[in-house]
């Protein structure tokens, strides 16, 4: 059976309930759905963020996410995956990213969702620019995100 994988990069918001419903509708083999939603925070590093603008590499972003979704499907007994990443200008409280992983059992769903988020944080071609009171700046990558992704390397 082909595992349904949905990948979208979009400016508009997403509806988690609708995405979960689309993923599970008519299926009785799904026992666990893990959803991760990442939101724009307003209080990073103690000082207010007014907005975030997300830029991506069109084409590569979809392909790279697709390769990692395939990798997740190979590693864990996943029955469906959905990955949605927003781009454009977002304000605190807005959704940024959604990862849904479905499986018969919880461990596979948790592992796949966490793997995909670690990948999206460290290696997917997206860049964030913050607007703060003192001006705009590109968000710097965190070494901790590289370390989180490295956990999944096959030895």
């Amino acid at each position, binding site marked *: 059976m082909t595992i349904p994988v949905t990948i979208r990069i979009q400016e508009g918001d997403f509806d988690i309930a609708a995405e979960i419903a689309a993923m599970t509708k008519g299926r009785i083999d799904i026992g666990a759905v893990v959803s991760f939603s990442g939101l724009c925070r307003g209080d990073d590093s103690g000082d207010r963020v007014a907005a975030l603008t997300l830029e991506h590499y069109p084409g590569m972003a979809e392909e790279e996410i697709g390769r990692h979704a395939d990798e997740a499907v190979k590693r864990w007994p996943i029955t469906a995956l959905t990955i949605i990443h927003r781009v454009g200008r977002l304000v605190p409280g807005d959704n940024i990213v959604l990862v849904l992983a479905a499986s018969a059992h919880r461990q596979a769903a948790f592992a796949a969702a966490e793997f995909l988020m670690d990948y999206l944080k460290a290696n997917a071609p*997206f*860049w964030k620019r913050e607007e703060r009171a003192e001006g705009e700046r590109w968000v710097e990558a965190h070494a901790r995100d590289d370390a989180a992704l490295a956990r999944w390397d096959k030895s």
Partner: protein
Amino acid sequence: MKVKYFAWVRERIGIAEETVEPPAGVSTVADLIGWLSTRGEGYAFAFEKPGVIRAAIDRTHVRPDTAIAGAHEVAFFPPMTGG
């Protein structure tokens, strides 16, 4: 070959993409960064710390020593901050 720039690399250079014909001898990603850096102030600024720059050839992440022969699209960008 087509070259694309993203995030602050794009901002420093001032353009999002261009078509370039690097001279013979420019054979790796690192060589291409070195050659592009000589093309103007914006380029020199964008590539001032080549170790920070990430690259992709035809939409796949590559390392500085990867050969560029046969590449249709080379992209340069800062470390990614998605998710």
